[in-house]
């Protein structure tokens, strides 16, 4: 401190200033300033690639996720998955530190492979990178080859690896890259001329809802379609509590994944979740390949069912037809509780498309539609959906905006509810409107990831959750004379 500086005293933020600014941040003026931001990102609704990559690495039988990078990165990813699923998320890192910047990360990687292989006895390891090795340019291909040569892991031990730089894309892109690598690794040399497993390979994409995976499997079972769900987290992140800790509960069987290259049909769900994987599959997998929208709402679920029926030459089973009818029944019975209600929705691209579909089908208005890692292509797809319905006409789409932008939108142009994830709860509170936690992550409610959102059962679940909440609000906020037995 320079001796001649006048003493500065501690000051407090005055209540007046606090009130003034608290009002100001809800104004149009503030909104404009807020939207003028170019460098600062506040409350983004997406995270970095490795998280998605880790999800994939967890989702194969006996596979140990392995972060090539700082152990702090691994801690962050694991905690996030722990909190969302309320389940273990075992993963290792090779704990790179400063010396890695100088010497590269090979030593760390080798030592870590040796230890992890010995301690956690995986059937496979899925390596993905965090920032450090990406910036310094580690050569994973060479490192792993060397590891085999030096005996840190057996020659034939399967190791998938993906570059998942955090300064590029979002968790869904990391998911895509890791999945691609897993499939490349597992299917290498497995393509057999003339062989057809007769099975469907289903790739749900970067989805953190275990209920959805179970629901896909249930639907396929109803159809009687033999299937391999690739990157199946349903048992991985929803395992029984019975006194035994299992390091690797569930996941797609490696054998099945390997043989998936000889599948009859390979279907990815979600146009945006697994584009690289899909493109590689098209060039390398036997059988038919196709990509369908994630089946949110009736129309997209219908498309899914009909495509399954067509591909496998089986009619949609009566049980699913009846389920469809029950879902439509639930929709008509409850439409009046949601009709014309305005929603702010945000999330990953394929989920976002799903929300918009579902809301339009119910006669609700998706109104502020925001993706914090979107694209022109996504915007076009959403707009096309909106254009198909009267209830989409007032909607606006915001690409690559964040939740602080969304706050401005909701405060200046109110809506009745938000669909998003836990991070939206501050907007929900400030705007005094409900938040439906359909997305990822959910850190503050239990079991929601166990409740499917896809297919007809998903429709019923969303109808139930949303409509009953609106009725709750009516009951909670009406005056005595409007408090009624029936709703």
């Amino acid at each position, binding site marked *: *401190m320079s001796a001649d500086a006048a003493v*500065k005293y*501690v000051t407090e*933020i005055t209540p007046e200033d*606090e009130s003034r*600014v608290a009002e100001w941040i809800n104004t149009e003026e*503030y909104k404009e*300033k807020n939207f003028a*931001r*170019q*460098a*600062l*990102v*506040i409350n*983004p609704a997406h*995270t*970095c690639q*490795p998280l998605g990559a880790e999800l994939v690495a967890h989702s194969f039988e006996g596979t140990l996720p*392995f972060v090539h990078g*700082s*152990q*702090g*990165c691994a*801690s962050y990813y*694991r905690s996030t998955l*722990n909190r969302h699923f*309320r*389940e*273990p998320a*075992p*993963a*290792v*890192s*090779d*704990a790179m530190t*400063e010396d890695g*910047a100088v010497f590269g990360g090979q030593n*760390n990687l080798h*030592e*870590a*492979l*040796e*230890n992890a*292989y*010995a*301690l*956690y006895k995986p059937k496979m390891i899925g390596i993905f990178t*965090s*920032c*450090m090795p990406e910036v310094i340019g580690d050569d994973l291909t060479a490192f792993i080859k060397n590891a085999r040569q030096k005996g840190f892991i057996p020659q034939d031990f399967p190791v998938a690896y993906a570059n998942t730089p*955090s*300064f590029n894309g*979002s968790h869904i892109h990391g998911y895509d890259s890791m999945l691609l690598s897993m499939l490349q690794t597992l299917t290498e040399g497995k393509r057999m001329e003339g062989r057809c497993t007769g099975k469907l390979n289903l790739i749900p994409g970067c989805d953190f809802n275990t209920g959805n995976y179970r629901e896909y499997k249930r639907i396929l079972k109803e159809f009687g379609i033999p299937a391999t769900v690739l990157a199946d987290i349903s048992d991985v992140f929803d*395992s029984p*509590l*019975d*006194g035994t*800790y*299992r390091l690797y509960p569930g996941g797609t069987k490696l054998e099945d994944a390997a043989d998936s290259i000889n599948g009859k049909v390979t279907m990815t769900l979600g146009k945006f979740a697994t584009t690289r994987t899909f493109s590689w599959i098209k060039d390398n997998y036997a059988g038919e390949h196709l990509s369908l929208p994630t089946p949110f709402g009736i129309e997209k679920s219908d498309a899914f069912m009909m495509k399954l029926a067509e591909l496998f030459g089986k009619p949609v089973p009566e049980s699913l037809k009846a389920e469809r009818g029950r879902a439509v029944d639930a929709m008509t019975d409850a439409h009046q509780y949601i009709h014309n209600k305005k929603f702010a929705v945000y999330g990953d691209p394929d989920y976002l498309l799903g929300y918009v579909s579902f809301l339009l089908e119910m006669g609700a208005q998706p109104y502020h539609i925001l993706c914090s890692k979107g694209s022109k292509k996504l915007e076009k797809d959403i707009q096309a959906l909106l254009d198909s319905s009267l209830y989409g006409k007032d909607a606006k789409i915001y690409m690559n905006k964040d939740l602080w932008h969304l706050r401005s939108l909701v405060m200046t142009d109110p809506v009745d509810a938000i669909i998003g994830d836990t991070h939206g709860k501050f907007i929900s509170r400030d705007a005094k409107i409900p938040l439906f936690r359909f997305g990822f992550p959910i*850190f503050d409610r239990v079991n929601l990831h166990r409740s499917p959102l896809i297919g007809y059962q998903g429709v019923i679940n969303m109808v139930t959750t949303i409509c009953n909440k609106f009725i709750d609000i009516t009951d909670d906020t009406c005056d005595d004379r409007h408090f009624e037995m029936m709703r």
Partner: protein
Amino acid sequence: MSSTARKIEGITKESTQEMIDKALEAYPEKGRKKRAPHLAPNDPGASSACVKSNRKTVPGVMSARGCAYAGAKGVVWGPIRDMVHVSHGPVGCGWYSWGTRRNMMTGITGVSNFAMQFTSDFQEKDIVYGGDKKLMQLLSETKELFPLAKGISVLSECPVGLIGDDINNVARQAVKELDLPVIPCNCEGFRGVSQSLGHHISNDTIRDHIIGTREFAEPETPYDIALIGEYNIGGDAWSVKPMLEEIGLNVKAVWTGDGQLEHIAATHKVKLNLIHCYRSMNYMCKVMEEKYGIPWLEINFFGPSKIRESLRKIAALFDDTIKENVEKVIAKYDPMMQAVIDEYRPRLDGKKVMLYVGGLRPRHTVSAYEELGMDVVGSGYEFAHGDDYERTSAEMPEATVIYDDVSEYELEEFVHKLRPDLVGSGIKEKYLLQKMGIPFRQMHSWDYSGPYEGYKGFEVFARDIDMAVNSPTWKFVKSPF
């Protein structure tokens, strides 16, 4: 609850060493050699730490450790409520640490507190061309959108240091242009071996940029103190502060739970620093002692015994008024605390606990469990140093296992062997332990409850421990079929 010669039936130096050896068997030789010095039976009589610590994490062992950025953002800086903390670099680090530490805050979010995620969201081009220019713009946008922010911290993520950006220079410029404290903190995650270096770097930054830049507006008194290393997890500071005020002290600043930049900046004017989390902030206490002559005292506010002991240690440094107040406070609260013990101890007596946490909890909470009749049969730290383990020996019963940066493999082995009735650790351990049928409390974050410190906290602590251990849900873990 004397701190010497406590023994646990069935636990001997030999049995513990055997358990450790068995856990180490699975390691490859190199790994075993590295890990072995981090695991040992406790020896309360020894003069030095029984385990090695603050070493690089062994690659591939599944450590729970975080990084320097986590120590800076999550622990030291994040809780300062009236500053904007910018996670400078890619989107993830800030996203993961957003709202996940439970350092509670006063004020209106986005107005007078900033418990949000601010990031420069580095893209490929920022890596290639550098992010300094973006940072400068970001700082000015921050000032415009958050006019009541008292300052901005810039917390570097890994790429920043690796690509050679000079955030210190940008910050210097910004201070001038924005007329606002902008504090650069080179806490890239690859630095050091754990979050610990992040604490240290942050402390140094506070020393270099903040301390001494303000003075309190009101007149000094002999009772002015600061509370250091108190992060207000689950509202701990809101339990402890009134207690200290009740004994007559003025808590002028809290570092950094629900903290305020300018109060921290004026802390060099207090008469005493009380330090709770020694690990993360002893550096600053030493700095303030050396530079400003402020004495410091380690205290422990978990459980009535330690509170009593700590209050009397504090009283010893003050005049009779404070001494009398302390006795009054003890006399007032002790019966209430006894009532809590009377309620819960019968249900918890003889239960075994294992701890694995960070900072101060692995030693500070031992006595609180013991007051509930429980024995702590193992303890360890994520990111402790030797001085932490030195301080731990006396708190733990003889020959109980001490583990530093324990791997999940080792922890699982120890739990299998010791079959504790409760494990207190973090979110990454929680569900693993629960799958084994072991009751668990997150002891980093009080498992969404709290406070656990102070008199108010002990009541909550006891209730929560009882709930965890005695929840009837555990009865159903084993299927009858």
